């Protein structure tokens, strides 16, 4: 069985967020989508984002929802196939109402990373790393 992760994020406007995540390349899985939650597939069979209304979120936890524009608890980073793909995804995020580069661009030559934030302020980093350049025994700079 493939290993799967579901990143659950609270969102204020489900339809708007669904459209945003589709714009940046995720695909909706209607089988696990209703008017309180939307399953967005980032990589089939492995990486999924579950967008949850605040009301749905509150059924899972009594923890409050921080304003992700103001504070953060997580930086989510996904890999991309090329530098151009990194830029392309950030461009798509901006076109869809997101904000570009909430974190500093990282350019180390063999590794290139940028970021965007979704409409609720959740930060996504997009990173390309030259697979041939990963040093065999050396600690590389963290892929954050």
């Amino acid at each position: 069985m493939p290993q799967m992760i579901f990143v659950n994020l609270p969102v204020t406007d489900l339809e708007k967020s669904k459209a945003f995540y589709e714009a940046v390349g995720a695909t909706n899985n209607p089988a696990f989508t209703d008017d309180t939650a939307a399953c967005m597939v980032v990589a089939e069979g492995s990486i999924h984002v579950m967008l949850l209304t605040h009301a749905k979120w509150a059924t899972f936890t009594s923890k409050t929802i921080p304003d992700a524009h103001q504070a953060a608890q997580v930086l989510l980073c996904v890999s991309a196939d090329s530098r151009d793909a990194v830029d392309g995804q950030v461009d798509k995020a901006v076109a869809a109402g997101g904000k570009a580069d909430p974190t500093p661009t990282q350019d180390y030559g063999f590794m290139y990373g940028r970021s965007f934030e979704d409409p609720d302020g959740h930060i996504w980093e997009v990173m390309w790393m030259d697979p041939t350049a990963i040093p065999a025994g050396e600690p590389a700079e963290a892929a954050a």
Partner: protein
Amino acid sequence: MSDTPKMIFVNLPVADLARSMAFYEAIGFTNEPRFTDDIAVAMVWSETIFVMILTHDKWKSFTDRPIADRGSSEVSLALALGSKEAVDAMAEAAAKAGGTADINPAQDHGFMYGRDILDPDGHVWGPFWMDPAVANGEAPIPETAA
């Protein structure tokens, strides 16, 4: 390059790197020494799923947003496991390793079973099992799911 499967790195700020490394090892992650130093530790779940635990100082080099209070939760991270027993084992390992088990009521819908845990810094993880037939779309989601 296009054959490279998409990977996710979940970056989490932690107060005590060694404590968190031990916690994540206890619940089933494996350390990747090539991406580990004294400010950041890579923990491997699978070939495509990684957790990067970062000291607060390291975290600050990526974002100037303050770390949200642990009484609040920006994200909850759910991992699909192979059986209900594996879910229980992860929850129990978490409790023994400095985390907290069952911060929310366990969810048992028959075809789906999940328990929510906290890591030592209050980050929420939700190990769960789902009947593969339902997960693959071969069987409908039972009515009780709603």
